[in-house]
């Protein structure tokens, strides 16, 4: 059987697509402890405005260096933070994937996060933007080494309580 590189690319793309579906599902369930497991030990996670990203200014709404900080974010939101009840839907699409020579994978995808507050009639777009990702394999499974969530909606409505 001849090796078709298109098949490997397709499998990798399917794998990352499944990863993102799973990632969105964890956040929609607000299962933040499970969400933490999406990241590699030295994983970097930032939610950054397009304004800052394009100007090379590093400030993020959420800025985590390493899975320990990501775990602290999850724990603090679950155990200490006060915010009103809400439901969220994370939609991820337009995935593109590029395998790197060092075995990592660069990917990008668009996202929309729709939020419903229990006391407001209309669902609203909480965030719209793109993921810029670097995946690595940890014990065979894909983990995020970097996820930059670059959002276009510069004006956040009230608060971003659940990660993107």
């Amino acid at each position, binding site marked *: 059987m001849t090796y078709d590189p298109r098949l490997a690319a397709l499998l990798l793309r399917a794998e990352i697509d499944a990863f993102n579906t799973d990632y969105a599902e964890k956040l929609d369930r607000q299962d933040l402890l499970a969400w933490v497991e999406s990241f590699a030990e030295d994983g970097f996670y930032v939610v950054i405005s397009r304004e800052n990203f394009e100007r090379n200014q590093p400030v993020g709404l959420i*800025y985590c260096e390493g899975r320990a900080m990501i775990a*602290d974010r999850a724990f603090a939101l679950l*155990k200490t933070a006060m915010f009103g009840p809400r439901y969220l839907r994370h939609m991820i699409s337009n995935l593109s994937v590029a395998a790197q020579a060092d075995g990592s994978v660069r990917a990008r995808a668009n996202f929309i996060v729709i939020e419903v507050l229990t006391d407001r009639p209309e669902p609203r777009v909480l965030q719209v933007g793109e993921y810029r990702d670097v995946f690595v394999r940890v014990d065979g499974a894909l983990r995020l080494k970097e996820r930059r969530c670059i959002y276009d909606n510069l*004006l956040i409505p*009230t608060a*971003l*309580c659940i990660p993107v």
Partner: protein
Amino acid sequence: MDLPNDLPRRRVWPGEDFTRIPDWVYTDQWVYEREVERIFHGHTWNYVGLEAEIPDAGDFIRSNVGPTPVVVARAEDGDIAVFENRCTHRAAEFCRELTGNVKAFVCPYHQWTYDLRGNLQAVPFRRGVQGRGGMGADFKLSEHNPRQLAATTHRGVIFASYAHDMEPLADYLGPDILREFEATFDGRKLVILGHYRHSLPGNWKLYHENLKDPYHATLLHTFLVTFGLLVAGNKSLMLADPSGRHGVMCSAKSDASKIAAEDKAEMRAFKEGMRLADPRMMDFVPEFDSPWSVTMATIWPNLIVQREMNTLGIRQLIPTGPNEFIMKWTMFGFEGDTEEMTRHRLRQGNLMGPAGFLGLEDNEAIKFVQDGMLRVPGGEHLVKLDPGTPFGTSETLISESAIRAMYRHWREAMAL
């Protein structure tokens, strides 16, 4: 001042007491419009930007004074000019980019052109075509400038005012507030680390009150309390200037293990034994000549200066109506910060902003307050804590004296 047709809408403060604030202070359109006229467009210095955002001639940012869009630009001679972002021809908001560098501002609609100080320079076809049309012979460019505001800067922070007879900023702040301002803006050159912006479905004054209300900080912010950043027994000060309009909430970090047992019992937020997996976020690197590890300055009417240990930020308050406002945050560090120090500021930034461990709670609380007033209307707020200090500076956190002082000033400014 008040036209007769204002009378039916005019509001009257209930009695001479300041321990009750009526809801209409926060929800009434007439009150809001009067605030824009008498406070934001009145005798106040309004924050509009940082010099580090417009270092070179031709640099500009869009900003606001109250709800009103303005352009803040650096002129050829290095002066800073602030003028309304509204073409004097057909009202178009002509400056559209958040920031940039230009030789002149050209309104895209009919290409009326303004220089970097906001002076109208050119009107296309002013003399018409072939002797027909155009402006009348009596038309003078200089009579058609957008409203130009007074501007001043201190330690790299830019303020503007519609009043052209403002006292110097140092006098406007007074010595106590100026000292805290200069503790944060200590003379090092600022480096902008980025912005965030959010809307909030509440009245703009609630944001001032939140930072003149040290009582809430010990109760709402579990995160802060748990790690000993601010607890009821901490060394702290709620400073108010003599006018009552400005304030600084100050506290010194302490060891959570040293909190008295009875204080812990009062603070439901206190959770024994809670530890961060990565405690670097809460490190405090001393860098300021100040006894306080945290100061939150509320500078009337639209500026908050945040010095939360090493995460530093400006919050500009932009009211958009009685029931909503926008906050624009500008986070900064200093020239000479190491890469590690910058990253420390960014990590600690997780405390603040619309996704911050503290910031998101304040935003939610303000929404809840406005919801309460809109859905059960016609009530009043109780601000009675610490009757021994009727107005002004308080050395206990369990006090609302700074809020009362602010309303004493507000009523004077509003003539209500």
